C-alpha cells in the first residue's frame, strides 16, 4: 500500500563518499575529545587526595568542573552524534530549552536546598 502524502525528508539527507570521509574524521575527533575528558575525570577522581592533600575547597572546585565537563560531553553527544547540530534551529530550541529549564535548574535548586537542610540539621544538633 503506497502512501503519496508523506514527504520523505531523509531522502535529502544522503551524502557522497568524499563528504563521508570528512564527516568520519569529525566523528573521530569528537570521540578523542570525549575519551580524553573521561580519562581526566577518572584520574582526578581516584588520585585527587594525593595531589591536593584532601582540601575541602579543592573538592568543591573538582565537583563543579566535573559538572561542567559532563555538560560539555553531553553537548558534543547531542549536537554531533545525535545530529541535532544539523537540524533546524526551531527543532534545536524545542529540545534544548526545556532541557535547560527543567533539568539544569532542577539540579541546581536541589543541590541548594539539600545544602540548606544539611546546615540546618547541624545547627539544630540533630546530626
Amino acid at each position, binding site marked *: 500500500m503506497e502512501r503519496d502524502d508523506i514527504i520523505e525528508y*531523509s531522502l535529502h539527507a544522503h*551524502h557522497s563518499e568524499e563528504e563521508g570521509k570528512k564527516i568520519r574524521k569529525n566523528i573521530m575527533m569528537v570521540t578523542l575529545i570525549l575519551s580524553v575528558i573521561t580519562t581526566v575525570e*577518572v584520574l582526578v577522581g581516584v588520585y585527587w587526595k594525593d595531589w591536593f592533600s584532601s582540601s575541602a575547597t579543592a573538592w568543591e572546585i573538582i565537583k563543579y568542573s566535573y559538572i561542567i565537563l559532563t555538560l560539555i560531553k*553531553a553537548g558534543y*553527544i547531542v549536537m554531533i552524534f545525535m545530529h541535532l547540530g544539523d*537540524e*533546524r534551529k526551531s527543532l534545536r530550541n524545542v529540545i534544548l530549552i526545556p532541557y535547560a529549564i527543567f533539568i539544569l535548574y532542577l*539540579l541546581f535548586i536541589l543541590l541548594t536546598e539539600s545544602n540548606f537542610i544539611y546546615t540546618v540539621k547541624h545547627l539544630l544538633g540533630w546530626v
Partner: protein
Amino acid sequence: MAGEATQAIDKAELWGGGRSPFSVSYGKMMMWFFLISDALTFGGFLSALAFQRHHLADAWPITEEIFFHFPLTHAHLPLLYVALMTFILIISSVTMVLAVEAGHRMDKRGVVKWLAFTVVGGAIFLGSQAWEWYTFISGPDGLWSTAADNASLTSNPYGPQLYADFFFFITGFHGSHVLSGVILNLIVLIRAIQGWYDKRGHYEMVEKVGLYWHFVDLVWVFVFTFFYLI
C-alpha cells in the same frame, strides 16, 4: 550532511500546513519527544539522588572504597571497571554514528558492520553491569553466600540504606534501557541485512534507533558523574 533542514524556506510555506515545519519525519519527531520525556524521568531520579546524597553527606560512603573490583583479578583498582564500562558505551555510540553515516551513503555493508559492533558493545556493557551488581551485592567480604553482609533493598553493609536503593534503582532503570536498546538494535540489524531499508531508499530507521542509543549513552555519562564521581 545537507538535509532539507539546512535550506532556508519561507516562513509562510514552512508553517502553512501539509509539511513538517521542522523538516523531520513523524517518526524522528516522536523519537525526540520520547527522549525528552525520558530525560526528565532520569532527571527526576538524579535530582532525588543529589538531594539525599547531600542530605546524608556525613554517612555517604566513598565510591572508590566500594567499586574497586576488577574481573579475573584481586587487585585493588578503584573505579577502573566502571571507567572501562563508560568507554565501552561511548565506543558503541561511536560505532552507531558510523552506522548512521554509512546509511546516509546507502552503504548496506557498512551499516550492517557498524550496527553489529554496536549490538556487541551494548551486550558487553550489560554483562559488565550484571557483574557490578553481583560484586556489590556480595558485600565487603566478597562472598555471595554470606547473606549477613550482603547488600539488598533492605540491608546495606556499606552505609545508609538509601545508597544501595539508589544504586539498584538508577543503574537498574538505566540497564533496562540498555537492554531494550540492544533488542531494538538487533531487530533493525536483522532488517538491514534482509534489505528492508535498501528497498525503502533511506536508512532513517537506523538514525532513529541511533537517537535512542545515544540517549542511553548520554544518561550513563550523567549517572557515572553523579553517582560514582561526585
